[in-house]
């Protein structure tokens, strides 16, 4: 099987503290892997290294054989890595729909080929720039409609369409987790990193979450790594 994401001898220091030492990981395409370890083992640090928040002191990180070292976090997202956070980071005072639409944003104004991604769900991406939106051109309306429609479809799939217009921070905890996963999915990732998605959930919610994660892997054909 092709390797989707590979980390080789990744080492990261915080000053004198060695947070990650010689970490190796081969994530095959379509896999659903878990990363386990005690508190403070460096799991979240590895996520931060993969998503470009930190740059590793040593070692290589490759997404589909392309190095992501030195790239900015948003560029890595464009290449096809999306993540959720252990402590939720939703856009609280915006609506659920807007949370998703923001994640669809970067695809506008980009060519069809974003990075070397494998899955190109949306064939035609409409290009729109600042002037389009200020002058409300046809292009703008097309792009806006596309973004909104795709966001609604996604929310429907994830079964969040009943709260589409709610302010995000008013949602119950379980739905917030779901929203964060949906927002990560909206960037059309090839690899999805879930940072303790079940934290703070009751057994019923965890069961629901596991179903959701399997559903995502099967329907979106993406590789998942979770803590």
């Amino acid at each position: 099987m092709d390797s989707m994401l590979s980390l080789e001898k990744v080492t990261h220091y915080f000053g004198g503290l060695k947070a990650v030492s010689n970490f190796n990981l081969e994530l095959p395409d379509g896999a659903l892997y878990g990363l386990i370890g005690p508190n403070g083992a460096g799991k979240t640090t590895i996520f931060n290294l993969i998503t470009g928040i930190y740059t590793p002191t040593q070692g290589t990180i490759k997404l589909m054989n392309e190095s992501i070292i030195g790239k900015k976090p948003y560029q890595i997202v464009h290449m096809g890595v999306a993540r959720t956070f252990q402590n939720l980071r939703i856009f609280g005072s915006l609506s659920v729909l807007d949370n998703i639409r923001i994640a669809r944003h970067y695809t506008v104004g980009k060519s069809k080929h974003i990075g070397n991604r494998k899955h190109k769900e949306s064939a035609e991406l409409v290009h729109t720039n600042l002037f389009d939106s200020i002058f409300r051109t046809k292009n703008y309306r097309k792009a806006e409609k596309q973004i909104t429609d795709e966001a609604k479809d996604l929310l429907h799939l994830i079964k969040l369409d009943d709260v589409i217009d709610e302010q995000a921070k008013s949602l119950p905890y379980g739905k917030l987790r779901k929203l964060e996963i949906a927002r990560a999915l909206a960037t059309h990732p090839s690899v999805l990193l879930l940072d303790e998605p079940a934290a703070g959930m009751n057994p019923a919610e965890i069961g629901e979450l596991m179903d959701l994660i399997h559903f995502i892997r099967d329907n979106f054909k993406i590789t998942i790594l979770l803590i």
Partner: protein
Amino acid sequence: MALFVAGALGIMLLVLFFNAAGIFTDYIVQIINISLINVILAVSLNLINGFTGQFSIGHMGFAAVGAYASATMTTLIFKVNPAMPGGYFVFIAALLVGGIVAAGIGLLIGFPSLRLKGDYLAIMTLGFGEIIRTVFNNIDYIGGPRGLLGIPKFSNLFIIFIATMLTVIAIRNLVFSTHGRALLSIRENELASELVGVNTTHYKITAFTIGAFFAGIAGGLQAHLLQIAHPTQYGFLYSILVLIMVYAGGMGSITGSIIAAFALTFLSEGLRTALPGFGDLIHVRIGDEWRMVVYSILLIIIMLFRTEGLMGMREMKLLVPEQEENHGQHA
């Protein structure tokens, strides 16, 4: 939106009519003009502070750039006046040049300063505003500390009104778009925004540049209304005043900025005449000098009772695009 434009134009015609009929004195029309300029300043600062969540307190620095650039063009280079044929064309061009130069400065400032966050950014923008003021204070060609005098009076209610309306429409269109949502996401959570693919640095600089552009236009309008551009006009205090309008109206609400700019401009002028009269009523001598005390107390009351500003993050319906109306509140 069409309704908003129609309503705004209707109000403008009404004001012009009242002025012609002698119901509104020139003094009142002048305060309306100043209010409208303050609307441009507040709405453009709101784009930076309220929508993008950056803390800029040097907004008048951009206005100063716009004012001096446009006034230099009309007064010193082309030496036009409203009576001359084509004078107004030069003025409109000068306004745009003022806006563009201010935007250029905004861009220039944006690169180093947007590495900073919160309070640090505030201090940086404050310092920048003062630098601009001091630079103008020391250039003799544009009057130095005497200020640039004899600027022709090109600004009138009509032009200021149209400029204000265009500013509001442009910023509203920007905010209710995918680019505007990218700005909002930076305010909400910068890290999360970056990690859903938003190039946050790019958007912060964009917000700064666009905000500076409109501040530059406002500065140009103001210089051609008051017929003077003086370094002290663009001091720290005025920047804070605009900031107060943004906060009192509601961070992230265009409607709020419009209301607050009018309310606070009229309030500070109104207290000038109202206070002595009020003093007679309670038989205590209250003079004009108490104006700022009452003004500040009113601000404190607004902040105590409506911490999120008069409008919170809400917008009046006229400003919300139709396709967004189905989606409840936006910001």
